[in-house]
């Protein structure tokens, strides 16, 4: 690449980086925030204290990691499942319902286990709708899962106004889970629940599956070269991607059940603020590597926790959380791509 050409290509990139930075500063300053206060709030609110880490950042990171792993599994198998959001809601609804129904009759741990399992199954079933539409009718899963997200959203709304509404039938939410049906905390006095540990373990397990096992290998070749996997490997790729699709939904459904039993204890309409969409960014920024997904999930959890602290302590508008997240994604993308190109260009 000649020098003139390098400049021509670097120019728009520099311009974009500059523009992104400008947007960030303009928003901050025009909101009347003091830059230094804002940045210190960002740090203190995310990683700057034991409390921030254990009660804010990692709590928020948990659904992002689990859903990031769900997306990773699907994408690795060549399935563009962008329905983690809907599968999360399905799992939260079913898991919550079962936890409420069984908490009184079953011992706590059993009830909890049944609830989590139900969440997993429900997420799998929700994904199976799209998987079956893809297998039988060739419906693009990008579209069908998007539709199913909307349907899940209105479905949970129906549930909390109808069959799952709390006993007084006043509030659009379910009854609250009794103590026994809640996930235990990891540390006393901190909100971090064992769901986070499950998420980390799942990340390691998925990495192990991909790297070491035959099933994981079949998933990877199905995603990376379906025709070769079918021809040279005699692998039933349609079946592998179908099953991976459902497993991916099952993870997302489990994440929903974890959120209800570990954080909210109640089923609400707005149970997810779009975790399923953020998770796509989490997974792709981690380059679909399960262990890296854990890191990316924590990074996004920290961003959100820090942005909340900026709102509280520095008067930064709430929208700054999504701006910050978006800028972080774009920034990482830009750096990553520029490095890749420099490597390509190197002699």
């Amino acid at each position, binding site marked *: 690449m000649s020098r003139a050409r390098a400049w021509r290509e670097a120019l728009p990139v520099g311009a974009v980086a500059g523009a992104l930075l400008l947007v960030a500063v303009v928003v901050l300053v025009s909101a009347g925030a003091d830059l230094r206060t804002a940045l210190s709030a960002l740090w203190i*609110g995310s990683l700057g*204290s034991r*409390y921030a880490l254990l*009660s*804010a950042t990692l*709590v*928020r990171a948990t659904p992002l990691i689990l859903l990031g792993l769900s997306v990773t599994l699907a994408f690795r198998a060549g399935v563009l499942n962008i329905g983690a959001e809907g599968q999360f809601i399905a799992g939260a609804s079913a898991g919550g319902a079962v936890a409420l129904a069984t908490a009184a009759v079953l011992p706590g741990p059993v009830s909890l286990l049944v609830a989590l399992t139900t969440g997993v199954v429900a997420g799998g079933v929700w994904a199976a709708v799209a998987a079956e539409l893809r297998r039988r009718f060739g419906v693009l899963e990008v579209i069908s899962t998007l539709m199913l997200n909307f349907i899940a959203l*209105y479905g949970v*709304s129906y549930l909390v*106004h109808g069959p799952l509404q709390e006993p007084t039938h*006043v*509030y*659009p*939410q379910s009854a*609250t889970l009794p103590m026994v049906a809640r996930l235990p905390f990891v540390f006393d006095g901190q*909100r971090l629940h064992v769901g986070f540990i499950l998420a980390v373990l799942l990340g390691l397990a998925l990495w192990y599956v991909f790297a070491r096992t035959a099933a994981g290998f079949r998933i990877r070749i199905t995603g990376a070269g379906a025709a070769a996997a079918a021809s040279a490997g005699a692998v039933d790729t349609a079946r592998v991607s179908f099953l991976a699709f459902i497993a991916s939904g099952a993870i997302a459904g489990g994440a929903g059940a974890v*959120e209800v039993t570990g*954080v*909210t*204890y*109640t089923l*609400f*309409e*707005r*149970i*997810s*603020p779009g975790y399923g969409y953020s998770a796509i960014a989490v997974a792709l920024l981690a380059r679909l590597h399960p262990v890296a997904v854990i890191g990316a999930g924590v990074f996004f959890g920290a961003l959100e*926790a820090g942005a*909340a*602290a900026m*709102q*509280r*302590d520095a*008067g930064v508008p*709430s929208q700054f959380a999504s701006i910050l997240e978006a800028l972080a994604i774009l920034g990482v993308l830009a750096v990553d791509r520029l490095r890749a190109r420099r490597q390509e260009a190197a002699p």
Partner: protein
Amino acid sequence: AGSERGVAFRVALLTPGPITDQSWNSAAYAGLMRIKDSLGAQVSHIQTKTPAEFDENFRQYGASGYSLVFGHGFEFQEAAARVSPEYPNTIYVTTGGISMGKNLASMSFSFDEPSFLAGMIAASVSKSDIVGCLGGTELPPVKASFLAFRAGVHAVKPRATVITAFIGNWDDAAAGKEQALAQIGRGVDVIFQNADAAGLGVFQAARDSKSVYVVGSNSNQNEVAPRVTLGSVVIDLPHAFITVAREVKAKTFQARVIQFNTRSAVVRWVPNPATASLLSARAISMVDSVRATMLAGHFSLPAGR
């Protein structure tokens, strides 16, 4: 973060939606600003996106030594009940709801009184005898208010039809407008809207149609579209907020369910002078007599059909 008691009077507000909605959330924010201006408080606001954030923020404010934290909506009750025992020096107040504890209170608004009056007025103005209610999502205060409105309509015109619809969210103004137009197409000529930001679409629909009128809610929305607004069912949230904050600052606050009704002037019917000529003298006197029973504390909602 350690608690620095007595350093300053600090008040925080959690809203469930954007403070630009000119309704439920913006009124609460105005209340927070009033507390800041009149009581010299240090204030903080955060908009929460999901229930998962309720706990976290209540805790953060408690841990940083805030004296008073408002959770603006009934949905904050459980999180407040969970968190408040851990931060006894902070008073948690939810707007709406019936929870109370040592340092936990809720504000309850008798929305039904002014809604009933609004229903009477709507029935009087309606020529088609079909009126509509239009909400964002089916929340308890919204539903309660719609029921009272319906009772008010039927008190004047027992045979009138009242239809109710929900948009499904609080910010899609185009959908709000479209839902209003669907009701207008059905023959509705007065709409009671309670959809926050999306409700602005209802005013827009009324402006585009001939002789369709709107009843606003939460804030005084008479100025949003003066020609087509009959009046607003107002909760004077700034007034309610500062009332509570004064007591907290003076350390006279007693944890309780704080009732605000027509008598306390926090919840009230605010007619729009610009459309006053639409009301007959008979209607005005009927409304005035019911309001008198409310002010006297003798009003109760007639059993619905």
